[in-house]
């Protein structure tokens, strides 16, 4: 069996090269691992529970009275609250993001594949929601449905879903005009088969990138709501409400107000950095392809 004349296929390569990440990249990963660990094992590593008042001093300084990071305005252990806060904030945001993706991807793919008036109707509705500033929309929903954890998660999930819808729809439309989808349609494949086998695998990488970004937005939105007092309610600790509750401490330079803010900052920044790096890598591959 002789291969085709003029055939110069690249050799088959399957080995995985670990991508060069740089110092910042590893710092980001370490930060994320640290918070992940805190969130997962909160009850085991936190010296106290999140609501226990352990000292009479509010805003006890770092290291005072055997408290690693001092105390908050009620005299609760700040370190413990930060750890439990990680759990609340990161979990709620994650559930909200997953909800956003389930909702957004399903409707986005349906709109992108069905086209026609189905697409027009869904797209117009989504556009209407997108034209609202997120925080206003969130306030509206929360003021209607209350501030239970479920309502919060649904509100954030719904808002982010409108964004996910847009990218999913674009990806589906993109893939549907490709020749390999035409071939599948000509073969007589069902829409579901095409969706699952042709569209989804090609949308996976861009969607997973978007997932990272949506997650940071969810964290920020949740924290913002909590900061406004419409988010997570006491006695649960969450980073946004911790910043709000300890606001008075800002005049004494208390760690209690700075550290939760710093936690939000480090987590979102790390995720953003990794997403950007991943994007840059993908774009480099694409631009290499293009000049061919």
């Amino acid at each position, binding site marked *: *069996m*002789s*291969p*085709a*004349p*003029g*055939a*110069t*296929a*690249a*050799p*088959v390569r399957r080995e995985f090269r670990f991508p060069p990440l740089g110092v910042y990249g590893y710092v980001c990963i370490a930060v994320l691992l640290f918070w992940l660990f805190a969130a997962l094992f909160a009850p085991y590593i936190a010296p106290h529970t999140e609501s226990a008042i352990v000292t009479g001093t509010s805003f006890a300084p770092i290291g005072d009275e055997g408290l690693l990071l001092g105390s908050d305005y009620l005299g609760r252990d700040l370190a413990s609250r930060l750890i439990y806060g990680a759990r609340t904030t990161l979990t709620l945001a994650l559930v909200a993001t997953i909800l956003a993706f389930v909702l957004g991807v399903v409707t986005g793919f349906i709109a992108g594949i069905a086209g026609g008036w189905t697409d027009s109707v869904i797209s117009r509705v989504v556009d209407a929601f997108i034209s609202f500033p997120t925080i206003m929309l969130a306030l509206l929903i929360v003021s209607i449905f209350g501030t239970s954890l479920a309502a919060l998660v649904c509100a954030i999930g719904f808002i982010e879903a409108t964004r996910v819808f847009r990218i999913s729809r*674009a990806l589906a*439309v*993109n893939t549907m*005009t*490709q*020749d*390999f989808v*035409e*071939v599948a*349609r*000509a*073969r*007589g*494949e069902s829409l579901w088969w095409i969706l699952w*086998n*042709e569209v989804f*695998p*090609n949308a996976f990488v861009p969607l997973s990138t978007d997932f990272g970004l949506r997650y940071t937005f969810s964290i920020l939105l949740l924290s913002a709501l909590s900061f406004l007092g419409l988010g997570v309610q006491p006695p649960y600790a969450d980073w946004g409400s911790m910043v709000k509750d300890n606001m008075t401490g800002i005049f004494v330079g208390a760690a209690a107000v700075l550290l939760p803010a710093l936690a939000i900052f480090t987590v979102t920044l790390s995720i953003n950095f990794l997403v950007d790096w991943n994007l840059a890598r993908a774009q480099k591959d694409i631009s*290499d*392809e*293009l*000049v*061919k």
Partner: protein
Amino acid sequence: MSALLRIEDLHMEGRRPTGEWMPIVRGVSLEARRGEVLALIGESGAGKSTIALSSLAYARPGCRFTGGEVLFDGTPVLDLSLEQKREMRGRRVAYIAQSAAAAFNVAHTLAAQITEGPAVHGTMPQAEADTQMVDLARRMRLPEPERIGRKYPHQVSGGQLQRLLAVMAMSCGPDLLVFDEPTTAIDVTTQVEVLAAFKDVIRESGAAALYVTHDLAVVAQMADRIIVLYGGEIMEQGGTDQILHEPRHDYTRQLMAAVRPPPRASGSGADLESSAQPPVLSLQGIDAGYGGVKGGKPGVQILFDVDVDIPRGQAVGVIGESGCGKSTMARVISGLTPSFEGEVRLDGKTLPPDVKHRDKKDLQRVQLVLQMPDVSFNPKKLVAQALGRPLEFYLGMTGAERDRRVGELLNMVELPADYAGRFPHELSGGEKQRVNLARALAAEPDVILCDEVTSALDTVVGAAIIKLLESLQERLDTAFVFISHDLSTVASFANRIVVLYAGRVAEQGPTRRILSPPYHPYTRLLLSSVPEMRTGWLEDHRATREAEQAMADVVNIGLTGCPFHTRCPLMIPGTCDVKRPPVHRLEEDHRIACHREIGELQEAPGVHG
């Protein structure tokens, strides 16, 4: 005047599949001056494209620079930073390649992508970029130049996209234009116009041009000087006339001797008696188009009253210029674009127009192979999965049986069976197209629709695919519908030819009869547009009666009269422009749609009027 581009003693290496580096360019030096077209010719693998790309300081993946210098406007460019290179590539050098599909993003309108360059590089304001685009589009003979920019890439035909790529490249007002086989995917009549447009643009802008091609007849029209390459070395260089008529080097003489003959019927095709059997597939009075259907008619109608019969086991060539509806015809047959009038019959049985309503057995019998190998495969799936799916879907094969059959199919298209474990991007264009064919063969169909299967490929690779198709057609009892804009390719392979013009069948019949008188006036224009290998042919051709008429107007898909009347030298005013031409039926099912009598259509092509 000093040279705009100077390449000095360039050496490059390429990596073989086995991993070792081999020299592919050995000590090439050349100069390109402003206002001059320098052609690089030679067979596939001679290093033409590699050298042309080096003027952009670009080495393809798997290639590297190992010596020499490239000077662009006096600046050595190989050592520039990536940023500087990008700046130079975007603004000063334009690269016009063979395969346009890869250069456009399907998510944005054409205009957005074409005017992005000038806008980003700040060479002109948006409004000016827009008017310039319309102007270039008009010169590239694109239909509706004012409106075509609003379309998306998948809404224009392959040939149109190719010309839009040229518009995009030229919109930055580059100093150096690098053409790499830019007309391989375009039909002959359009090619004449596009070549003329390239010539005008080069002359007016005073840019320098490198022109890479294998087609000596095209070189004769375009080049001022020619460099003949073989195995990465310059064999001979000189003025166009000297190279073409008094080649000094033996290799150049060989090349001249191997010039592709003008279209000729293949021996095998002429002898088959076609009307003996009922056709396996037949189209009857098909009307089809795109856009939302209103009142029984789609937004844009593309096909008008198309009647075509495909005899069992034969190869039927469909030719016509870019945008005339060839691909649309294939889509109608496969049901992807349902016709709104007329019938598609498979063995006498009428098929539902929409693929959604056809049953599996019927779907299995008609398979489609598409134009662009690069986008025909899901990039995330192995060859084994791509080939395995039709086996599973139509024939219910699974497991080891399916894997064995995948291997057999690969062998049928002359690929080793272990290619099953590769991803599409690990195949060359020609190999992808073979797998593409294998995917169609997997269904064991009665009819395979091949839409421009060779036009995105290198000529030599394309020729090998045609060979493969011929041998498959001999061995299997499968009918091939071979869609192409290239008359020579179709003529060498097809038993019958269907000539489409503006969505209507102008002429159809056995290949031999199509290529000899009587001719439909459009077929005659096609035949006379195949370039001849002499300088000045382009100018002479444009001065002929046919071409002068042809340029008077772009194709207009009107609803009344003969669609060709705006370009036809034999047009009868008052008749051709208002009444639909009658169909003359001659022997061997040869049909010509024209108001003129058969006796008037005997004149040979290329006659000056």
